């Protein structure tokens, strides 16, 4: 979504106001005028200023006929939206499943799904996913000792 500055500016203002409301609960710094709330409030104030100017600018453009939001060209093709969602879903899969499933099995699945969606030929996809999952795990977990979760691997290897 590509928004008119009227919308972007309004979002900035809303975010800044929420920040200011949150800082109301911050404690004072004992014996100091400048506590934890000062810097966030200053930033929020500056953001509101930027937001206001953008709203005015966007309003003028809107009156001149610019729409409030445009769907960018890439988003008109549903396949592209699925591609973007798949990348996000892949990262989400790591966030929620990495500790239980483990790095190697999860990487195999994620790579296979992505490869197949992007129309990589099946044999190439399978071989690349296998080599990548085990290779990366060998290098980072075994050689460099990054504590990549083993998950299901505890029962296999």
């Amino acid at each position, binding site marked *: 979504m590509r928004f008119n500055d009227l919308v972007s500016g309004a979002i900035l203002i809303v975010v800044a106001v929420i920040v200011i409301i949150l800082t109301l609960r911050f404690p004072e710094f*004992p014996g100091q005028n400048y506590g934890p709330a000062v810097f966030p409030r200053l930033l929020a104030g500056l953001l509101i200023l930027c937001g206001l100017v953008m709203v005015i600018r966007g309003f003028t453009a809107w009156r001149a006929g610019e729409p409030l939001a445009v769907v960018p060209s890439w988003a008109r093709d549903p396949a592209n939206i699925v591609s973007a969602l798949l990348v996000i879903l892949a990262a989400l899969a790591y966030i929620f499943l990495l500790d239980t499933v483990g790095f190697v099995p999860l990487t195999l699945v994620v790579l296979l799904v992505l490869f197949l969606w992007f129309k990589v030929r099946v044999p190439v996809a399978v071989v690349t996913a296998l080599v990548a999952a085990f290779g990366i795990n060998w290098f980072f977990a075994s050689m460099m000792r990054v504590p990549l979760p083993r998950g299901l691997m*505890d*029962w296999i*290897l």
Partner: protein
Amino acid sequence: MTDFTRRHLMVTAAGVGLASQLAAPAIAQTFPVRPITLVVPWGAGGGTDATARIVGSLMEKEFGQPVNVVNRTGGSGVVGHSAIATGAADGYTIGMITVEITMMHWQGLTQLNPDSYTPLALMNEDPPGVQVSASSPYKDLKALADAIKANPGRLKASGTGQGGIWHLALVGWLGAMGLPASAVPWVPSNGAAPAMQDLAAGGIDIVTCSVPEAKAMLDAGRAKSLAIMAAARNPQFADVPTLKEAIGVDYTVGAWRGIAAPKNLPAPIAERYTSVLKKINESKEFRDFMAARGFGVKWADAAGFAKFMADGNASMGVAMKAAGLARSA
């Protein structure tokens, strides 16, 4: 594939063992069957990291399994301490907990306290020194103490963040001299190294941090250590007197590091750890390493460590309330 069967069987055996109290000693005999994770709540390259790595490497030799040191940093130590407390109590996640565990919950940063763990062993304790710049007009602690009494609030001190251990050390020392915490305002810093730099640059007057942390600046002749808040002198810095020797104030405090596991670790595994850690604590490699860094070696077994933390926790509570640093969660 032989590896597959062997490991599989052993893991299964361990699982069955956990389920049955009768088979418990069997776990201790086979433990560990896979790599151990040693969580460190502080960053790579620091003192806690170094201590954990030497303990980890010696443990690796004892156990014959890899011990992976994993830094879980941030949140003034809350992140790492909570990672240790919430780990699986199967002996494969342990961690190095530090003095902050007796402090953070008073500040309202976390609910975690010493009771959230199975204590295994206390390995180290370092007392803070009172450091001033080499160009400071105060040649000894008495002159510094007199200056603080004469002009409360004028001299500024640093060494760690607000409410950190070295801040408490300053407040405790001032309290022992009968002065309020406001006599020397605290300038929060991002650790001891930036504080020592600020001291050398003339931005602050006093740094309370451990002597090993100040060592590079002391060696460079940029700072001098006037006293340490310990019962006895540090053999590495034999010419630095104790508080009691310098001004007759009997106040000691220290930052300590120990090994602990998540709560409810099966007793046989805990005992195995404590005996291995005792061997490490007494080993020449560990002693030499700690001496080279100027770190103090201290030992307490599981029960002793638990009592040590309980005592420290109570006195920290008193000190932090007195300093106005305590907050409810």
